[in-house]
């Protein structure tokens, strides 16, 4: 029997949750999700198991399979669990990760939440004014902390922000140095601005959630309630009775029948095929999985859809004056500073986050130093505390080597070769050395294709003139369908360097608010 609803949303990540937040005020919404959660593993107490996992999955990188420290941490494994089997990708050059969890990839995110301004939205068929109201509502809903200075204003409106995260360790030293008038002028001449982060993390208790606790367990304990993730929104809407959240359903495809959409899914508990029907379908399964559902629905094995992601690099810096000092036990383990580069080395704005390394296990870096193991252990205890890592994101635009397509076997073939960047890093290394932070070009590491986890652009929003069937109009409506809308970053025609998720959410709310039911 087919279940009938007004609106079906697929996915509970930032996109799906934000669309539901907007729609649930007016309508009853059915949300279909696979929805893995953390609860099933949190009862572990043994410290070896807690650190490395039952099957030592936290040590998988030693065997050669790289996964970010947070995603391989045992209690975070649910975030990426099962996607290779349930939504397979064949690829040789795409090293990304997908999530089938309640809250999506945001379960492991760094919580850097920024607004796109009109410069970032260049090439989009919408403007900042189309999103500003939704940004404001999200800021209130989530509880975003951040600075209020000049750099903060480049990251979005500073109204209603909670106080910024206190700085500690090398990021604090960098911030203080960068604010001296002469240093500020020097940085400005080099196109560099440094400011405090804007984070979806509570620095004071807010809407029933407690303030952030500095226990350095962010990489090991998921669902810390001071760190926002969309699962809270889903649970909140569910509690108020407006959202019918259905976990354990893998959406395969949809078909349009007269004035409604039939969604075909598999109930994972028993493998049964089930059908749901609604007047409107909103796809928020993430840029890759939403594209998969669309291609599957049209049995299209020939179209190549574009894919965007932010090329990323990591540059470690050592702060000389902090060498040998004990690491600050209370420091925040995520990104404390934001760095913007707008200069001659790159045509688009480049944005980065500056981290200290307190969240990660020191031994992750054991062989990043050139000495014997004793020498390297010395470095871990005396140099690591003086180190920070600058993670830089670059903007992306469609390019011929980055594409996805459905294979005849029903899997998705994704191509995204590693893109080399590096000039900006060199400029930054030279500039930051003047502030007492040392690095060298051979230490720069470049993320592999897919490594930024910021996926977009598979079903881009565009004007009438550029339309083809696998594009969306400015209201997120899929051009090859009448009642199917895309609410995730699939619709972004370009990807600026700024982290995208707050804009995914604001855009999902905008699209949901325009639905005529």
């Amino acid at each position: 029997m087919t279940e009938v609803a007004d609106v079906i949303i697929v996915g509970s990540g930032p996109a799906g949750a934000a669309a539901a937040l907007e729609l649930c005020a007016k309508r009853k919404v059915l949300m279909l999700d696979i929805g893995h959660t953390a609860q099933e593993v949190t009862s572990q107490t043994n410290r070896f198991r807690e650190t490395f996992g039952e099957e030592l999955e936290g040590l998988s990188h030693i065997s050669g399979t790289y996964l970010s420290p947070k995603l391989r941490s045992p209690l975070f494994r649910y975030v990426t669990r099962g996607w290779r089997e349930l939504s397979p990708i064949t690829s040789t050059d795409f090293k990304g990760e997908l999530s089938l969890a309640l809250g999506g990839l945001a379960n492991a995110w760094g919580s850097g939440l920024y607004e796109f301004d009109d410069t970032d939205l260049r090439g989009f068929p919408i403007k900042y004014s189309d999103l500003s109201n939704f940004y404001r509502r999200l800021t209130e809903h989530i509880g975003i902390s951040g600075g209020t200075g000049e750099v903060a204003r480049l990251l979005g409106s500073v109204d209603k922000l909670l106080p910024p995260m206190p700085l500690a360790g090398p990021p604090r030293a960098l911030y203080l140095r960068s604010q001296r008038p002469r240093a500020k002028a020097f940085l400005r001449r080099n196109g560099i601005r440094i400011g405090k982060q804007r984070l979806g993390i509570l620095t004071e208790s807010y809407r029933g959630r407690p303030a952030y606790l500095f226990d350095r367990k962010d990489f090991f304990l998921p669902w810390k309630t001071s760190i926002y993730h969309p699962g809270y929104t889903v649970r909140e809407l569910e509690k108020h009775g407006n959202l019918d959240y259905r976990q354990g359903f893998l959406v395969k495809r949809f078909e349009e029948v007269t004035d409604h959409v039939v969604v075909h899914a598999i109930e994972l508990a028993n493998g049964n095929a089930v059908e749901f029907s609604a007047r409107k379908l909103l796809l928020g399964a993430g840029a890759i999985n939403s594209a998969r559902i669309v291609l599957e629905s049209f049995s299209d094995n020939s179209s190549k859809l574009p894919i965007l992601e932010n090329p990323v690099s990591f540059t470690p810096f050592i702060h000389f004056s902090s060498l040998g000092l004990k690491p600050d036990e209370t420091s925040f383990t995520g990104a404390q500073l934001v760095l913007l580069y707008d200069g001659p080395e790159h045509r688009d704005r480049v944005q980065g986050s500056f981290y200290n390394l307190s969240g990660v296990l020191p031994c992750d870096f054991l062989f990043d130093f050139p000495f014997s193991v004793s020498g390297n252990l010395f470095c871990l205890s005396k140099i690591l505390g003086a180190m920070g890592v600058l993670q830089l994101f670059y903007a992306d635009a469609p390019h011929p080597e980055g594409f996805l397509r459905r294979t005849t076997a029903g899997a998705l073939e994704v191509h995204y070769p590693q893109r080399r960047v590096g000039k900006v890093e060199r400029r930054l290394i030279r500039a930051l050395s003047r502030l007492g932070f040392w690095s060298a070009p051979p230490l720069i590491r470049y993320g592999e294709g897919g490594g930024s986890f910021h996926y977009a652009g598979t079903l881009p929003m565009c004007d009438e003139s550029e339309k083809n069937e696998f594009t969306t109009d400015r209201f997120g409506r899929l051009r090859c369908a009448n009642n199917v809308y895309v609410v995730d970053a699939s619709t972004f025609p370009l990807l600026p360097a700024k982290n995208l998720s707050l804009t995914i959410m604001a855009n999902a709310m905008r699209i949901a608010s325009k639905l005529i039911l």
Partner: protein
Amino acid sequence: MSKAGSASSDSLEREIISIFNEIFHVTPEPDAIAGYLRFHTVYGPSLLRRKYVDITKIISKQLDLEAIELFLRYCYPRNLLTCKFWVCAYLCEAQQGAPPSGRSRDTWDFVRSPLICLVMLGWFGVRDSTKWIKGGFQVYRHHLI
């Protein structure tokens, strides 16, 4: 089949005890030993793809584990011994802290200023150059790879 995968649990236990004692100067707890054995069960196949090193011989002849590892890491970055050192370092970290604390043991408490830190790095530079030569010598003399 390479010899890397065929180590018995007895010889693995001897390995972890030697590495812990010689490199980290602590005795492994039963949980750390169990973790080490488990690592070999779970990741055994991937260890076979690494450059084989005769660790049993290194231990029985009481050669300089640290020097040999340093030499091999530079000549064969994907060698078995470096991989085992890394596993032991993680297990030692978990054993020593109240994980997941992310703290590393501080046996160099006297180093509290950038200057002493740089002097120590210089000292490690000199010490490790001689270790590297010693390691290379032992590798070829005892046919360890």
